[in-house]
């Protein structure tokens, strides 16, 4: 079961036709890589996206329209309803023309450390994404894009209302090269051999079987199974009632299944790799994605151990990078703000990854005072916290155990909270706020005196950690 440190990955398992659909886990073939200078956009010239982009973006919708047209055309050819056909074809032409226009007016280039994307015909928008603020770069390939060998490049920044810079679509090779170059530029390296950044060492892969089992045992999965069991029992006892229930709750049931499939699809064969430019996460069944989180951009890590997983000793690791709440339209990717570093794995695998990502995280953990049992009876057995000069770790959770690691260098502010019940027991909670969105380390129900001491001392420790990190990074940069 354990696949620790196996650099060899079974290729071609996830795609029935390896030529049409490049395997998500296979490292990009060096021979398909053009010279970085070959991408004109990097040289400062304006560059268009791939001509197939509008087609891929319209994606499933367009396929459905064409299918309907073909179907109707076959069906109605005998009866000859030409007007209707003309209308449909006109609609298709309009959609195509709009797509082509949007492709024509969209262009991008990299100038002086800023990725600039211009789009729009009537309302021209020009967006600039400063490369020095890159938090992560994703390469996403939806099913249709994979057929054409295309990929979307997403640049995640901390600011900008959670909006990502998107280049959809580029060819696979372009996207890979661009990622390498953008990451190199974001680290302040002007000239760097891109070949170096492509050698990545796979750390571990999650077997699909285990992922499937873990999803069946997750909260939503258990709900779905319960519903199915109830429906089956109902179908045996009263078939009429069962049919009525299914037709009434079909939408909800469908939603549940789709949600679970999306999780399975998103984390399918997730591979964590150690690349020179950061941590790389590759995954996906239909839509594949490859995320790169540069070193030192991780704001926090969380380990979750749900109750139902405990009999297998499984846990889930999540990483959090800096992002702000988007104010307007909610980006679909925002839901994935805390990305699974390990969707499901043994504690040994989690510890192995932790040692790679946050080396020498604190071992020693302090439990809260015994009287905290009265304030948090369910949580009490899981409450603890620990810190060394680089990281803080807190544990909590009622039914599931949650462990949060936060680098002290990333702490933005520290808050001490004391509710009415806590005050009765002379307890207080200390929150360590980071720029991430999902993971928040909370030192719950500590002794008040300890809390105040920490509040006095932690800011200084965070400053020291920050200086240490800067010194380390400076050393790395000068040596590279």
């Amino acid at each position, binding site marked *: 079961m354990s696949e620790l440190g196996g650099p060899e990955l079974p290729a071609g398992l996830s795609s029935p036709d390896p030529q049409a659909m490049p395997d998500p886990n296979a490292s990009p073939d060096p021979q398909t890589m053009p010279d970085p200078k070959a991408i004109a956009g990097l040289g400062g010239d304006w560059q268009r996206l791939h001509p197939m982009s509008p087609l891929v973006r319209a994606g499933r919708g367009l396929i459905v329209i064409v299918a309907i047209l073909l179907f109707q055309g076959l069906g109605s050819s005998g009866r000859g309803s030409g007007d209707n056909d003309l209308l449909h074809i006109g609609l298709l032409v309009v959609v195509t023309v709009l797509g082509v226009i949007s492709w024509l007016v969209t262009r991008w280039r990299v100038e002086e450390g800023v990725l600039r994307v211009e789009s729009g015909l009537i309302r021209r928008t020009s967006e600039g994404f400063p490369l020095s603020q890159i938090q992560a770069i994703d390469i996403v390939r939806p099913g249709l894009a994979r057929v054409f060998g295309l990929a979307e490049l997403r640049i995640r920044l901390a600011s900008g209302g959670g909006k990502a810079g998107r280049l959809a679509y580029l060819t696979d090779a372009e996207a890979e090269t661009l990622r390498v170059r953008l990451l190199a530029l974001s680290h302040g390296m002007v000239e760097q051999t891109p070949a170096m950044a492509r050698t990545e060492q796979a750390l571990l892969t999650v077997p699909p079987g285990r992922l499937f089992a873990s999803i069946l045992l997750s909260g939503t999965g258990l709900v779905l199974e319960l519903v199915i069991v109830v429906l089956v029992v109902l179908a045996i006892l009263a078939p009429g009632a069962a049919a009525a229930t299914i037709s009434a709750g079909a939408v909800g049931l469908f939603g549940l299944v789709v949600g679970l499939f999306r999780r399975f699809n998103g984390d399918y064969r997730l591979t964590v790799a150690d690349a020179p430019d950061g941590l790389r996460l590759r995954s996906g069944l239909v839509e594949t994605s490859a995320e790169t989180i540069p070193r030192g951009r991780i704001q926090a890590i969380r380990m979750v151990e749900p109750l139902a997983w405990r009999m297998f000793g499984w846990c889930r690791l999540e990483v959090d990078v*800096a992002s702000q709440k988007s104010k307007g339209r909610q980006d679909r990717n925002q839901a994935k703000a805390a990305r699974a570093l390990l969707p499901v794995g043994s504690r040994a695998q989690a510890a192995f990854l932790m040692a790679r990502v946050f080396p020498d995280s604190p071992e020693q953990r302090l439990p809260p005072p015994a009287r905290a049992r009265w304030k948090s009876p369910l949580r009490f057995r899981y409450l603890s916290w620990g810190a060394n000069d680089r990281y803080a770790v807190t544990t909590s959770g009622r039914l599931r155990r949650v462990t949060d690691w936060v680098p002290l260098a990333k702490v*933005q*502010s520290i808050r001490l909270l*004391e509710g009415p019940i806590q005050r009765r027991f002379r307890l207080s909670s200390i929150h360590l*706020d980071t720029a991430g969105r999902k993971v928040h380390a909370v030192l719950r129900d500590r002794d008040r005196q300890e809390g105040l001491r920490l*509040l006095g001392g932690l*800011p200084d420790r965070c400053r020291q950690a920050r200086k240490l990190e800067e010194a380390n990074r400076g050393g790395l940069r000068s040596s590279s």
Partner: protein
Amino acid sequence: MVEEDVNEGALDWHAPSPRLRVLRRYEVLAATLVSLFLVLGIVVALGAGVLAVVAVVVLLVAGSIADVVVGRRVRAWGYAERSEDLLVRRGVMFRRLSVIPYGRMQYVQVTAGPFERAFGLATVQMHTAAAASDARIPGLPAVEAARLRDQLTSLGESHAMGL
């Protein structure tokens, strides 16, 4: 008390302007009067004299309790400037004490609503990259708010660190 122990009492805590207390009192008064009129209107329409007296008494008591609570909350609010960070404390039932390093500051926001402006007050809020950071100081005299804003901005620049 929460504030005594951080940095061994060497802190110089500042409180919001006493005018904030007056402003809050007026707010409570306005809310009480509005609800008084509403309730009295309903009771008179129903034509129950005893109920009217009871309603008035209940509302007046509620209003004065709210006034006391608001007063305590105003008094609980305070801030202290240390060499490297800003401390903000607030709350009576739920007490909070935040430490925000100047270097983590993204921007300072000074806001003043119409009523605050009428009292010559302003609210200063310090924003960090973390959404959870809680550094709002209401009811500062406009001059003090401007001073604090400039002070925080210059300190933020000199201590600045990246994400």
